[in-house]
């Protein structure tokens, strides 16, 4: 078990280091295979750890510490990994889906000049994410947290000669930094009270903290989760992050990194349970985000942005589930979402790759006729996303709604929001599907489509999509809430579902029927508007404008934060830095020169002067001798 955990953690790091050390000595392709192999080895390690944990008697998990890293007084923290049901669950998802996506990248990034850098970064990302989920104490989690933020920055800005990509990378990093700061503050409070960042110790002290303190700690953690998972209000970075390559969007911004917030809530749920209000705030933010994101996705014209807003919306579901206390449900949705969202991104990537890197759906109209295999894969993913049985989304999304229904009146409100979200999901997903994949190919698509040796793409891209299609279909069959729930049982020792979030069978049934019905209704409306010919779409210009500006969040943040910062920076530069700081350097230099010039006048070159110095020295020494006696 220990071997599996360490192998899983360090294999991708070894991949990164190897690629970095080899540099340009290896061909680009080889870098891709090294990276893929390292992530698959990590997956092997995850499987090993999983089965070992299953076989062992200690189901609550074991922490292995490699060495003590930091010791200050009574505070001690080490490099440790935790193998428990939750962490093995996450390891399998991260390494498994990650491995498929890295394999896909070999085909997608083929021909890029700096491919090796990409694979080094992506291996680094997988390592960071595994560190995050395997971390045995909060400090390791924070280290992984920061590193995934870094990897995300590096990969979003991978095409660094594009100013938009660079700006998006900075935006992502800065917004994540806000979350990191709140998390760090929460950790400081925990250290102050419990002198430890070990999970058990910190959670133990959560009982003893005062109400305000534990609420603050929970808020700090929530801040980090919200930033990393792109929930309102720290969500504006995620659509811009689509500037990165499509596999990056699939891996980081769909399957794994953005789900880190959900993992955090599940991991630190003892703290959140002491601060129930904050937990419910998390659920509320999730519900709000899923609505807002769903609405914005209705008007997006970039294929990746639609899927990005969909991601934001689905993570809202996960937050909702975790927030009301149904941790296993939220995590189950995390798993199925990883499958079908990655599938959607990768399928879209095949289209983008085949049609001259075009992402505008209006230009890509009807490309499904040219790429049937991709069309079916995308359809599977879309149906899974909407939650149509027997696809995976159905099994994971409906229990969340049911759990919310069970939980007091505000739960019902959030459940209603989630149901409306289900309708919107159906609508925007199939809007996308019908526009892009149905109907006659547009002139643009026909002109720019080029097959890859007769097939729609290289095998390195097709195989992962195929695997993910299968997973998107069957992945949900792992748990059917009322009847058969091995996942909840597996996660029970570490993430027990709160009683308040355990719905009755009736509520489950109502939730499922309503969700599926609304989803199908959404598909139907989409069919009417976009599928069957060119029907004119009813437009409400004011609403359209609001949606197209993404509810003016970007403009608001610009006015609230960016402009004042710019004004302050300009003022400081003009009135402080240039006259005081920069001038000091020049003044010091000039002063030194002046002193030098003055001193050099002693060098008269005359012998007499030097004799004079001897005489003066004699006089001074005489004075000293006289004074000292």
């Amino acid at each position, binding site marked *: 078990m220990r071997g599996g955990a360490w192998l899983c953690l360090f294999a991708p790091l070894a991949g990164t280091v190897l690629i970095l050390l080899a540099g340009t000595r290896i061909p680009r392709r080889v870098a891709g295979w090294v990276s893929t192999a390292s992530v698959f080895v990590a997956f092997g390690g995850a499987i090993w750890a999983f089965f070992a944990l299953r076989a062992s008697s200690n189901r609550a998990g074991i922490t292995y510490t490699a060495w003590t890293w930091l010791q200050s007084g009574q505070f001690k923290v080490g490099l440790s990994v935790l193998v428990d049901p939750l962490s093995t669950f996450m390891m399998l998802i991260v390494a498994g889906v990650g491995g498929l996506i890295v394999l896909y990248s070999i085909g997608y990034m083929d021909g890029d000049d700096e491919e090796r850098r990409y694979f080094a970064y992506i291996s680094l990302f997988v390592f960071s994410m595994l560190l995050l989920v395997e971390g045995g104490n909060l400090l390791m989690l924070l280290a992984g947290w920061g590193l995934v933020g870094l990897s995300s920055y590096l990969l979003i800005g991978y095409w660094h000669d594009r100013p938009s990509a660079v700006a998006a990378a900075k935006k992502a990093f800065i917004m994540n930094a806000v979350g990191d700061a709140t998390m760090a503050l929460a950790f400081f409070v925990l250290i102050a009270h419990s002198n430890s960042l070990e999970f058990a110790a910190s959670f133990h002290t959560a009982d003893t903290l005062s109400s305000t303190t534990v609420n603050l700690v929970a808020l700090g953690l929530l801040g980090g989760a919200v930033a990393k998972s792109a929930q309102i209000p720290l969500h504006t970075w995620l659509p811009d992050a689509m500037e990165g390559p499509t596999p990056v969007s699939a891996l980081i911004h769909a399957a794994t990194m953005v789900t880190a917030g959900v993992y955090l809530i599940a991991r630190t749920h003892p703290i959140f349970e002491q601060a129930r209000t904050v937990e419910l705030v998390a659920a509320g933010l999730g519900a709000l985000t899923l609505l807002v994101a769903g609405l914005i996705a209705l008007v997006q014209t970039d294929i990746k942005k639609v899927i990005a807003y969909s991601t934001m919306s689905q993570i809202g579901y996960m937050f909702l589930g975790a927030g009301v206390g149904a941790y296993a449900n939220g995590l189950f949705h995390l798993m199925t979402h990883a499958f079908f969202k990655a599938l959607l991104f990768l399928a879209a990537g095949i289209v983008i790759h085949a049609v001259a890197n075009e992402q505008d759906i209006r230009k890509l109209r009807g490309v499904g006729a040219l790429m049937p295999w991709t069309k079916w894969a995308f359809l599977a993913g879309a149906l899974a996303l909407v939650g149509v049985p027997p696809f995976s989304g159905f099994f994971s999304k409906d229990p969340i709604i049911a759990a919310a229904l069970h939980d007091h009146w505000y739960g019902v409100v959030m459940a209603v929001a989630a149901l409306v979200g289900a309708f919107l999901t159906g609508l925007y997903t199939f809007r996308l599907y019908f526009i892009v994949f149905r109907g006659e190919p547009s002139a643009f698509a026909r002109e720019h489509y080029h097959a890859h040796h007769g097939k729609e793409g290289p095998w390195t891209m097709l195989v992962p999509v195929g695997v993910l299609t299968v997973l998107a279909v069957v992945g949900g069959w792992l748990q059917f809430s009322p009847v058969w729930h091995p996942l909840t049982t597996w996660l029970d020792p570490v993430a027990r579902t709160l009683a308040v979030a355990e719905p009755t069978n009736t509520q489950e049934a109502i939730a499922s029927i309503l969700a599926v019905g609304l989803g199908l209704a959404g598909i139907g409306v989409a069919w009417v508007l976009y599928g069957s010919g060119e029907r004119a779409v009813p437009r409400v210009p004011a609403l359209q404008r609001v949606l197209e500006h993404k509810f003016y969040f970007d403009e608001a943040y610009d006015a609230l934060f960016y402009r004042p910062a710019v004004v302050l920076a300009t003022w400081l530069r003009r009135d402080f830095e240039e006259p005081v700081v920069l001038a000091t350097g020049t003044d010091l230099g000039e002063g030194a020169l002046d002193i030098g010039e003055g001193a050099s006048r002693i060098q008269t*070159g*005359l*012998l*007499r002067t030097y*004799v*004079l110095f001897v*005489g003066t020295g004699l006089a001074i020494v005489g004075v000293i001798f006289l004074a000292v006696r």
Partner: protein
Amino acid sequence: MQGPGIAWYLGIAAFLFGTGALGVLIRRNPIIVLLSLEIMLNGGNLALIAFARHAHNGAGQIFALTVMAVAASEVCVGLGLVVAINRKRLALDVDKLSELRG
């Protein structure tokens, strides 16, 4: 016989020494510099003789004679240098004789 105490002689010696030092420092003609050095040496001699008289110790006078001999040797060599410089048509000016060349 009486007369002024030793301290007065020492005062004169100090004045001679200081005057000689001043001459060394401000004159440019090397001959005058040598003359100023002579004054300094004589100041020292006077102090030695005065202390010899005061302490009834002959060593002071012996030392003064030695100093006189050394001063003579030094002047001999110094004036030889001056003559050699003059023969080379260089300027007899310590400010200009600043390089060991020529």
